[in-house]
């Protein structure tokens, strides 16, 4: 069942609860079965079913809670889309590649950093890096412009790097 592991992985990252994630995947398959007539042959099936999963998540209890976080996070970014002060896109990395490598080799630290990301930044980086989706596909799944995809990816990676450098202080900033 090739897509099930990918769907479940994203579901559990987003919901952070295995029971919720299983329900989310089950609901996604049910909706896909019922709504397959809406799928356009020749279009991207993976993007289509991931979009169902993501929309299902957004209307779930955990998703609705995260949506409130999204609103706060967007406010921090500014209504004109200006970079989030906590995660400036053009932040200069003062670390050397060797130090970066050491930081990234700590998988537990990276997983912990990813757990601290707000949903909009987490989902975009999972679709890009883990699912190897193109920006256009990510835009389809998240139903946002490609420019926003690029902006979120930049902010997500900047956030991860900051969290890896200063895990405690940055985690507080994320929740603020």
């Amino acid at each position, binding site marked *: 069942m090739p897509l099930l592991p990918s769907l479940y992985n994203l579901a559990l990252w987003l919901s952070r609860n295995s029971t919720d994630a299983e329900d989310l995947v089950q609901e996604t398959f049910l909706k896909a079965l019922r709504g397959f007539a809406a799928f356009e042959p020749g279009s991207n099936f993976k993007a289509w079913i991931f979009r169902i999963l993501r929309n299902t998540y957004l209307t779930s209890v955990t998703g609705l809670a995260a949506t409130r976080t999204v609103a706060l996070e967007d406010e921090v970014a500014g209504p004109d889309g200006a970079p989030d002060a906590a995660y400036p896109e053009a932040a200069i990395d003062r670390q050397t590649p060797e130090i970066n490598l050491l930081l990234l080799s700590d998988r537990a630290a990276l997983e912990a950093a990813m757990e601290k990301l707000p949903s909009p930044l987490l989902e975009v980086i999972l679709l890009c890096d883990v699912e190897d989706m193109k920006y256009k596909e990510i835009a389809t799944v998240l139903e946002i412009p490609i420019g926003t995809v690029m902006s979120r990816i*930049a902010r997500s990676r900047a956030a991860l790097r900051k969290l890896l450098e200063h895990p405690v202080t940055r985690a507080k900033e994320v929740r603020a």
Partner: protein
Amino acid sequence: MSDHISSQQLNALVDGEMPRDQLALAEQHLAECAACTSQALAQSLLKAATKQAGLRYRPTDTLETRIGEIVRQHSRSRRGTAGSGLSSPAWLSLVGAAAAILLVASIGGMAMWNHHQSEADVASAQHAALETEMLDQHIATLAADSPPQVISSDRHTVKPWFQGKLPFSFNLPENLPADTKLEGADLTYIHGQPAALLLYSIGKHRVSVFVTQRTGGTPAPGPSDRAGFHVAGFNTRDLDAIAVSDVDPGRLSGLVGLIFQAQSGVTLPAK
């Protein structure tokens, strides 16, 4: 490019999404700027690490069984509706939905289908789903205008590039027709499985050849057309290959035949 490369551009670079014209400028800048090169390396390392860390959870067998049962029940109920004499387009689409999910899911429920559908029909539908995904990727490759991960016309460069990236290996033909050229290759994923995407050009036409590890026993489909593109493929004992292009079907089949011959040393039988 005298200014430093922006964060978004660096991400586009490591994600393989930078347009060709910008890529040339970026590469020129990277050759001269240690700070941006360091940034690009850092982004690349982060991407690789995130990919590994992000693959964190696997579904339980219980969930797989539950999803499989849902799909089977759906398929069964659709057949029941059909037996009652209803034959509307909506019913047909729902049966199509059940069939498609069955195919995508590739679950054991396929056995139930076989009571009502011949193995040939199922295999044909499986190939159709596979071809659709490959066609999507071919079109995305054409539209992205970004260079492949490995750019080379040398088969001795392209083949080794996949070492450690794929759980299988393959051969590339040594001699190609005059206007046919190997342009490079990408690592891609088909139905969640790693695959080699070989990029050829025949004249001005681009050709995508997807090579995957053989997982089923179904034979390769004959040449076909999808959305105006031509599709041709072959399989060997260990590999499945499907080529997609808008080039003349005969020339596409010729290239596919050469790739097949490189695997087995024998000529691809005509279909």
